[in-house]
């Protein structure tokens, strides 16, 4: 009876933790199988423990090249989308202008569109234009689909900002440019950072749109896709695990740092 009551009270917690397990299970598998020594070309069945792949993560042809290309594209796409998106977000929050509704819809549509539709239509454009598919076409596409997400993130932050802060800056002898540099930008920074992080993640992990528009260029997701047909090297698990661990450590470190800073100042 007591067990039943306990179960009833903690049902939500149990269900939530089960879902969390479902979300994390593949990462566990990826990590475990990064220490596998597979028989044959595919790394789907457990054979022997081996740290060989960790000792030589670039040991597979083209793997690290594709990783470098993905990082490069993600960097520039993040930069482009963040700059353009931040400008749009400021315009939307701070100014009243014509065609506001149309612009909001235009920003919403890329988020409400299956990737394959955007991928196919962009390819149609590039083919019609006679553009050479590769780094630049992928970059153009990534900036396009990251833009709306950046706008959403920055807009939320700018909207919650007290307009009196900027008025106070103006009152204290800061001209429009100084006001933007010293007050508006620092306060909007967390929103801009969130947008940039989102853009980086979206761009780095994009497969569908990239696959349509990359031509002969091979990004990391495309390399993984190709290996799923030809044979999966253990090294992709190594890279997947390493990125997961680095991400978790970075977030935990920044959280600990933030906590220590508030404690020290209080």
């Amino acid at each position, binding site marked *: 009876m007591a067990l039943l009551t306990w179960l009833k009270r903690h049902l939500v917690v149990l269900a939530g933790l089960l*879902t969390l397990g479902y979300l994390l299970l593949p990462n566990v598998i990826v990590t475990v199988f990064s220490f596998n020594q597979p028989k044959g070309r595919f790394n*789907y069945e457990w054979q022997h423990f081996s740290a060989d792949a960790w000792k030589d993560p670039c040991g597979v042809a083209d793997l690290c090249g594709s990783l470098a290309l993905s990082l490069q594209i993600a960097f520039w796409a993040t930069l482009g989308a963040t700059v353009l998106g931040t400008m749009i977000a400021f315009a939307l929050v701070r100014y009243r202008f014509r065609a506001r509704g149309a612009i909001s819809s*235009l920003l919403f*549509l890329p988020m409400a569109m299956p990737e394959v539709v955007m991928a*196919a239509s962009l390819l149609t454009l590039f083919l019609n234009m006679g553009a050479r598919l590769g780094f630049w076409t992928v970059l153009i596409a990534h900036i396009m689909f990251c833009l709306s997400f950046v*706008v*959403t993130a920055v807009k939320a932050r700018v909207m919650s900002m007290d307009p009196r802060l900027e008025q106070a800056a103006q009152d204290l002898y800061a001209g429009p440019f100084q006001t933007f540099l010293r007050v508006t930008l620092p306060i909007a920074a967390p929103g801009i950072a969130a947008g940039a992080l989102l853009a980086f993640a979206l761009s780095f992990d994009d497969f569908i749109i990239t696959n349509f528009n990359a031509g002969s260029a091979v990004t990391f997701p495309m390399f993984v896709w190709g290996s799923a047909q030809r044979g999966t090297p253990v090294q992709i698990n190594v890279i997947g695990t390493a990125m*997961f661990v680095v991400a978790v450590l970075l977030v935990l470190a920044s959280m600990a740092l933030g906590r220590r800073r508030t404690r020290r100042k209080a």
Partner: protein
Amino acid sequence: MTTTLTEAPPPLSPTAPERTPPRRRGRLTPYWLLLPGILWLVLFFLLPMVYQASTSVQTGSLEQGYEVTWHFATYWDALSAYAPQFLRSVVYAAAATVLCLLLGYPLAYLIAFRAGRWRNLIMVLVIAPFFTSFLIRTLAWKTILADGGPLVGALNTLHVLDVTGWLGWTAGDRVLATPLAVVCGLTYNFLPFMVLPLYTSLERIDPRLHEASGDLYARPSTTFRKVTFPLSMPGVVSGTLLTFIPATGDYVNADLLGSTDTRMVGNVIQTQFLRVLDYPTAAALSFILMAAILLMVTVYIRRSGTEDLV
């Protein structure tokens, strides 16, 4: 009220002095801010749609080139040839969306109300998998659902596979290469997109509302039905949209975890475009998918009464 939000009012008073040069250098500023980004979207989002629309009514061949002939029959041919794939896309995506909601709600609720000091850690664990490429993680499901693996073995022993097999979700003692595997993969891939908006809207709910509801004689289940769930509707709406839309167009899960019998419309578009090179058919399929999704989304948003999503 800031000056930028109000149009310059004409001087009404007859005593108005003649010199009123408005100090409004900022009139054009919003347009300069918008120009580059919006131009980008027009050139690389809207214009491609126009090209695609035009391609879908062209006829011709790769060798001789294409010409706009207003050949609308392509649409009809594409629809009749690929109706099963269209249907499958909608059914799989809907199933995955419902599963995401059922699985994601408890997790979002846990983070919002019950996690206490573990809240940040759980948030990190929800987001962190993103940093391992989703393709690698989807491939991991091949291992988890492998034939003769521990999971499939357990399901077999418990006779779950008999039931799912009878329903047509699985075939024989396999899970891989069946609809169940594809839906499972879709659910897995889009679950964070359900959990995060749900969490955002749950987190805004004042926990005192739960106490107030309990104080007013509502049992916990009634409180959930009458207070918590209605207040989390914005999260439910954006979560279902963020799950359903990409799931409909997805072809990665159907390709990696499914078989030729689980092909979705995304697979068809991809094959037509990149392998068969039948551009008009691919464009028509893509256009139908877009129109169908926009229609469903509009109806859904109207129905659920949440208009502001961006």
